[in-house]
């Protein structure tokens, strides 16, 4: 199962709550500062994402969207 995780970076407040809940260690806090002055969360090696959605469930600021792409359906659109 392949997951797709998107961060709406400008909404992120850099609280870091999403980082430890990811079972695949996909997320880390970036070095840069976003428009709100916080270091935003970002995905490293996003291909490891399974689309479990735990990060999105944890995020207080609806920064994260998560989708699941089953290989079979991937191309169908």
């Amino acid at each position, binding site marked *: 199962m392949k997951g797709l995780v998107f961060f709406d970076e400008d909404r992120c407040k850099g609280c870091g*709550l999403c980082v430890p809940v990811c079972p695949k260690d996909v997320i880390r806090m970036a070095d840069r500062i976003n428009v709100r002055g916080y270091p935003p969360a970002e995905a490293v090696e996003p291909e490891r994402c399974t689309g479990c959605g735990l990060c999105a469930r944890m995020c*207080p600021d609806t920064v994260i969207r998560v989708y*699941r792409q089953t290989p079979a359906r991937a191309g169908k659109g």
Partner: protein
Amino acid sequence: MTSRDTERPLGAEVVYERPRALADVVTHYCPGCTHGIAHRLVAEVLDELDVAGRAIGVASVGCSVLAYKYFNVDMQQAAHGRAPAVATGIKRVHPEAVVFTYQGDGDLAAIGTAEIIHAAMRGENLTVIFINNAIFGMTGGQMAPTTLVAQKTTTTPRGRDPARAGYPIRVCEMVSVLDGAGYVARAALSSPSNIARAKKAVRKAFESQLGGYGLGLVELLSSCNVNWGMSPGDALRWIETDMIPVYPLGVFKDRSEAGAEAARMEVAG
């Protein structure tokens, strides 16, 4: 995939997107504050039950005072503690509406004690989202009735001393004594699994209203990392290590048909 790309990928199954009932604005909450999670759960449930169009929310006074900006539903902002009375007025005018209050522990368990008890006494068909973060957040971290024994706050600088400042108040246990309470449960916003349970409870609290079972109240153990003086992550851990032992999770009452049975199963929570 860290972009601002807001398109939904073609053909992908949605695991999580912003609920429609949540306004597309950035909240004023502190980084890591679980108020944001509670807002989202309410909005998700409004969407799932498809009742946002007939929902009327009541914002209270506390950090969530601006909740009227964050939900895509009609809202009334209520005086400190009086949200259940305001909601009662609304619900009696629009019995078909889905009316909810969103209140902190200062608002609901201090100044608003009489209003929540009596809304429950009357069996008002309302949903109450009760954020217990063991502190007054908005005013800068004073003691709440829910503050733990020995917890330091700006008005218990030496830690809450029961001999002078009393004991934590357990709202669910108290409200569930009232016959008019339809659904009473406590959950925690401390981990993805607890958040999943919390969402179930929020949904039940709305269903109690829809089914006419009386007041549905969900207490959500929440963090206020800023006023607790912790990192957001430590604050979540503190909920689990320090708050849950004082405020056990579970369903305290469920008057709905399925309720009695479900209660037995979920209390283990």
